[in-house]
């Protein structure tokens, strides 16, 4: 009886040990999105404040502000404010460039890669005043209307300030 008990404990221990690998962070998925996808993703956040950040692995200020976006999403968890990031790298660079960068962070928001046939269509879809400079950030209010757009690197406080402006009724 005692031997059986020990064996059972050993098996349980082995099982826990072997399955502990899957208790690590889930692999990040970076979906390619075209216009129809982008439209439905944006619309799905109606009723919430949404911050959309456009970045690329080649863009140094984008890489530098990324940790602040992660902090920001942590801060706003459960407060009806969401972040999504869309990469302007090439869709075939997800494995080679995007994932290795993202794996440095505990990503807590969806990350996509833009896959419009023409980059100018992606740029104009988000805002016709935008000439494609990165990083670019777009904030949508609860009515799902784009209220704020800016280019250039921002820090946690500045992002928060812009979000709070949008949250105000």
């Amino acid at each position, binding site marked *: 009886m005692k031997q059986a008990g020990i064996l059972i404990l050993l098996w349980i221990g082995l099982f826990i040990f072997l399955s502990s690998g899957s208790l690590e962070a889930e692999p990040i998925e970076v979906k390619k999105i075209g216009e129809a996808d982008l439209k439905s993703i944006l619309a799905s956040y109606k009723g919430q404040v949404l911050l959309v950040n456009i970045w690329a692995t080649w863009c140094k*200020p984008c890489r530098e502000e990324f940790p602040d976006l992660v902090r920001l999403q942590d801060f706003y968890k459960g407060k009806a404010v969401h972040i999504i990031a869309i990469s302007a790298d*090439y869709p075939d660079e997800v494995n080679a460039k995007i994932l290795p960068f993202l794996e440095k962070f505990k990503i807590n928001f969806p990350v996509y890669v833009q896959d419009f046939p023409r980059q*100018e269509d992606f*740029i104009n879809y988000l805002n016709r005043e*935008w000439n*494609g*400079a*990165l*990083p670019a950030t777009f904030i949508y209010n609860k009515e799902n209307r784009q209220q704020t757009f800016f280019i250039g*690197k921002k820090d946690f406080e500045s992002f928060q300030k812009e979000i709070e402006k949008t949250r105000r009724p």
Partner: protein
Amino acid sequence: MLDRTKIYLSLTIVTVILAVAAAGVVSLEAAGAVEKNKIPAFTLKDFNGKSHSFSDYKDAKAVAIFYVATRCPVSNAYNKRMADLYKEFKAKGIPFIGINSNKMEDADEVKIHAQKHGLTFPILKDINNVVADKFKATVTPEVYVVNTDRDILYHGRIDDSRKQDKVTSRDLYNAFKEILAGKPVTVKETKAFGCTIKRIKK
């Protein structure tokens, strides 16, 4: 009120409104606001300290102005293409001017970078992004092709991919060919991902 009086009053009001509006437009131009579809006139020093003005290029068929950077991977991806285009089109009457408005990239850095990458057209240092602000330029690389009256004939990207082997549309090249052929430019305005111009905090 008599009908005639009403008419005179309405005419007076309309005239006053038009006069005020006209004065507003005149004062805006006097203040140096950018005229629609024209670049502003400018004078800047190159990385050797030599002054260049747009008016120096009176004899050009067109002038191509490139906002460039030393540290932007996209601008750098175009170094060779800019050098090649310059070689081809300078001889055909389209001189190039580079403008570096980035706050952290000083004249010495711009000079070393230009020499390293074979950029032989003048590259001007736009301290405090004064000229970039007048142009409303935002990204590197960003090109303005203008005639000697400063009218913008083409504005935007060099081509549609930072990776040369993925290019499908040589927009700047096409614009140059059309200008030299005396034709209107078909695609006048384009966009592409690039780096923000690194502006001073005001």
